[in-house]
């Protein structure tokens, strides 16, 4: 079974890139970007995860099967989030549901 040998320099490069991205996350934390706060934090996290998966977990040099496993995992995560959103995005978010006043007044009436 062949193993691709990765130069230690690649590992150090990825490691320092991860440190830099962690720094970027920290710095960005000091600025209020409004609705982009979560988006930016998640985008940096995804970049870091991708680097770890490709280099530290050797997916870049591996055969089709581990890649398929990885894609399967991502697909299942998409199922979890996507189908939960089927409910979340279509749910009625009424902070003061209609009908509550009538119910309480009808209780008080006698």
């Amino acid at each position, binding site marked *: 079974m062949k193993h691709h040998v990765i130069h230690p320099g690649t590992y150090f490069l990825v490691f320092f890139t991860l440190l830099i991205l962690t720094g970027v996350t920290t710095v960005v934390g000091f600025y209020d970007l409004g609705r982009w706060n979560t988006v930016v934090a998640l985008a940096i996290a995804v970049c870091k995860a991708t680097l770890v998966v490709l280099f530290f977990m050797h997916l870049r040099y591996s055969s089709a099967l581990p890649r398929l496993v990885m894609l399967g995992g991502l697909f*299942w995560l998409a199922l979890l989030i996507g*189908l939960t959103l089927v409910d979340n995005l279509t749910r009625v978010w009424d902070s003061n549901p209609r009908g509550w006043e009538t119910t309480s007044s009808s209780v008080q009436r006698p």
Partner: protein
Amino acid sequence: MSTLSVEEPEQAESRVHYLNVHYGVKSWLLTTDHKRIALLYLASITLFFLVGGSAAVLIRMNLLTPTGLLVEPATYNKLFSIHGIVMVFFFLIPSIPAVLGNFLVPLMIGARDLAFPKLNLLSWYVYIVGGLFTLYAVIAGGVDTGWTFYAPYSSTYSNTHVMAAALGVFITGFSSILTGLNFIVTIHKMRAPGMTWFRLPLFIWAMYATSVIFILGTPVIGITILLIALERAAHLGIFNPALGGDPLLFQHLFWFYSHPAVYIMILPAMGVESELITCFSKKRIFGYSFVAMSSLAIALLGFLVWAHHMFVAGVSMYAGMVFSILSYLVAVPSSVKVFNWTATLYKGSISYEAPMLYGMGFIGLFSMGGVTGMFLASLGMDVHVHDTYFVIAHFHYIMVGGAVMAYLGGIHFWWPKISGRMYPEGWARFSALIIFLGFNLTFFPQYILGYLGMPRRYPVYPPEFQVLNVMSTAGASILGVGYLIPLIYLIWSMRYGPVASSNPWGAKGLEWQAPSPPPTDNFEETPVVTAQAYDYPSREVEVA
């Protein structure tokens, strides 16, 4: 009835096999032999079955009278919680995969062991540690959240031992993940020469599909339980609306694992069923590839149906419709299996040894559980019977009528291979029969009770429901006796049962080519597979 071929006792006892190769507690606790680890699991899950079963006995005793015979309502809450937690997470989920799967996967594919033997032993220890946490929760005073741990009750309000019980479930999850990983790698990489994917026994396909669920679903329940712990300990607002959380998010995350967990229980049972039906009708399975692929289809579709547990919890009407339709879809591969098993019986040389009795019971009970599941998948009907005994009856027909029947059928079928001894056939048939009768008497009245409106998890009920409740408790007593009989005679048979030959059933499959019990390395020479699975001679050929 087929005749049993029996090995000379002296011959079997002089041979070195996995049971007599080493003696002493240490040789068991440090073993990396998949067969010994299977037996460690067998002993452990039997212990947990007795704990969960004791809680069930007390629940049914309490429901003998409309006002509750035995315990306070708060204690009743703890009884059904511990029954559910122990039976689901510590008995049913590991039952067939960790016992029969561990024992049989390498034997069936012609391997010497699983791919990661040490990881296999670790999975047992992880399971035991998780189990100890849960047992601590029971002994320290119990937990009252139900096995579903619904938030914000579990994360905020319950003052019972939620953390210990939840941590137990969290830790045990890693055991499932390790087992799933081990099976997937083993099935991919360690098949004997000639054992192509479509020559695999259907039990292996079922274990493969189950392992996929183990790996993809279990992390989600782990994360969900951690979030409960965070909300409980650090008051982070995740599920509690008072803290800005969403309680339905908990239910989405919980059921994303816990609905597929039902398929973790039933898929291995279906795998066992395929082995039983083919062996005791001496026929190749009808539609091998359809049965194999339907296992994978169930594993996938099982992940798309979870919100049918939440139809009346406040999910949107649109989501309700989507999940209702998807829930109907999962019935298709399940039906493919049931029809194909039935078609396999057609013109088969059927014999009714005890494993086959369990197998036949499985088809009927699983079908009833499945069809009532269709009732619950429909939006309108579910509103009427949601959280009633109808649901309790439905999932017990699947989990007990399906999974436990197949587990017992499998244990009997492979007992000669596991122990090297035959069990007493008469007692086994008798207990299979009374388990079937006791089970139906326990749970069929619950369908009616639920349809009439008796809610689940209540310690009291209106007097008009008493007759059906007494019937159910009477059935549970019969069922309890039915479970104790095999426990006694299987232990007896390990010492006193007639010595079994390597293939007492005349079954196909590599595990029957190994001696009973097999040596530590399973096969003296790596087998070479040249034929399809279930390669039984056709009757026409036999006649000719």
